[in-house]
């Protein structure tokens, strides 16, 4: 037997080491459709509990929207279950083309290419357009999938301090000897909820002859006046060269992603991106559902407007209640706790109060920056938000952190 006892024990030890570090990810089972209120089995084997979900990327509440489900059913009936092919062999239907065209129009870009996920889009885009004589200059807090894509690419890379434009300018100056420069950033940073100042990024890109790539996975559908994204928010819709984004969050929450941008760059992705060439096509029901999502969002801003109101109510409620939240305007609201055990303990007590949230700590976020990341949704009602704030106030009181700033929490619990 190749998988000997000795081999097995080595892997058991690896798992044990993860548990010892306190970073073991436990299983949680959702026994209902995704939504504001969900039924959860946690810990595994426990009776199901109905809790309010404040940790999904379901920003617009479209994951279980009746029109989207209906459209997905119709897609299933009219175009089948799967493609059994990559895109370029026999995996592209008319509805794939339709979704690509709709995304180009929604995002204000020249062309779009669908990928099985945004993780795949980010894995493929850099290798397709850049060579060893080029350089990527990336914000240090970009999403892990961008980091992986950059590492897979033959171009050189460098980094700049998170949203520090002075440092970005310094790096652009340093790399003037390279053939192409590509600035890479998230539009909205997933752990902090920060909005990247794309107007300033574009000014620097133009000054130093650089292209700009933005991952809009936590922005598409709800950031900006009509939900087009961070580039709409900063009024630079015609100055971004590449957007990568996902259908797995606000845009229906199923799966799939895309690269959207200058037509030559998209063509190179179509010719060279390995996840496009070697991974299966997006399934027809998901494509049909995603088309409906874009149609819904193109007709009305009702959902992103409600999300904005919910976000404001939660941020104001938490601040009034004396919780230490990271300031901002996005529906990603980090409740700062700094200490990993404290973040885990409070998340567990919040679950007992009927609120489903998760603690995040190193290495997912910087050491000493542990937090609970709360994510608002247009599916939340006012009473859901008020219940969540009240639960944080109650649990915060139990741990004696109400009204405490960073220094006071660290003095009490350590980092």
């Amino acid at each position, binding site marked *: 037997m190749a998988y000997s006892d000795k081999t097995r024990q080595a892997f058991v030890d690896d798992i044990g080491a993860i548990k010892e570090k306190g970073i073991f990810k436990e299983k949680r089972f959702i026994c209902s459709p995704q939504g504001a209120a969900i039924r959860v089995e946690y810990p595994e084997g426990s009776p199901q509990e109905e809790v309010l979900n404040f940790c999904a990327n379901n920003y617009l509440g479209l994951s279980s929207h009746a029109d989207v489900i209906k459209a997905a059913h119709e897609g299933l009936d009219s175009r089948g279950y799967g493609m059994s092919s990559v895109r370029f062999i026999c995996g592209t239907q008319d509805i794939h083309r339709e979704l690509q065209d709709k995304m180009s129009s929604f995002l204000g870009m020249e062309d779009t290419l669908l990928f099985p996920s945004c993780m795949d889009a980010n894995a493929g885009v850099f290798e397709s357009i850049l060579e060893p004589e080029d350089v990527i200059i990336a914000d240090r807090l970009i999403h892990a999938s961008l*980091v992986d894509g950059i590492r897979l690419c033959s171009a050189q*890379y*460098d*980094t700049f*301090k998170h949203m520090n434009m002075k440092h970005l300018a310094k790096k652009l100056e340093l790399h003037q000897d390279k053939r192409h420069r590509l600035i890479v950033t998230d539009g909205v940073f997933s752990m902090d909820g920060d909005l990247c100042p794309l107007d300033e990024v574009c000014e620097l890109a133009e000054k130093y002859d650089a292209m700009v790539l933005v991952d809009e996975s936590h922005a598409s559908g709800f950031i900006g006046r009509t939900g087009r994204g961070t580039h709409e928010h900063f009024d630079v819709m015609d100055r971004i060269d590449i957007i990568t984004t996902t259908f797995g969050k606000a845009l229906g929450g199923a799966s799939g992603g895309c690269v959207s941008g200058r037509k030559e760059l998209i063509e190179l992705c179509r010719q060279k991106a390995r996840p496009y060439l070697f991974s299966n096509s997006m399934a027809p029901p998901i494509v049909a559902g995603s088309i409906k999502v874009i149609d819904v969002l193109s007709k009305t801003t009702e959902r992103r407007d409600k999300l904005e109101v919910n976000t404001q109510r939660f941020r104001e409620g938490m601040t009034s209640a004396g919780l230490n939240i990271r300031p901002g305007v996005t529906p990603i609201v980090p409740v700062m706790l700094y200490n990993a055990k404290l973040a885990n303990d409070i998340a567990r007590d919040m679950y007992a109060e009927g609120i489903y949230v998760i603690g995040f700590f190193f*290495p997912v976020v*910087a050491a000493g920056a542990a937090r609970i990341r709360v994510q608002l949704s247009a599916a939340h009602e006012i009473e859901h938000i008020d219940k969540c704030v009240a639960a944080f106030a109650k649990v915060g009181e139990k741990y004696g952190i109400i009204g405490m700033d960073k220094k006071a929490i660290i003095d009490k619990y350590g980092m």
Partner: protein
Amino acid sequence: MDEMKDVVLEYVVDEYVDEDDDVEVGFDTALISSGIVDSFSMVSLKVFLEKKYDITLADNEATPEAFNTVTSIVELVNKHLG
């Protein structure tokens, strides 16, 4: 040796520490394992060392362990300088 330590320390502070960060970095402060420098942004330091001291660091040398303190970085550079 000490001069090189000062140069590397100055670069690390300038490159990785924000003005509002309340961390103090010395010659033996853990950089990688404490999260001051992450494995992704470590590349900036590698490029700086190669350019400044005209050396080439192989990927299997530029490890998180070798880059964990200013002291260990300087030891690595000195190995190349002979």
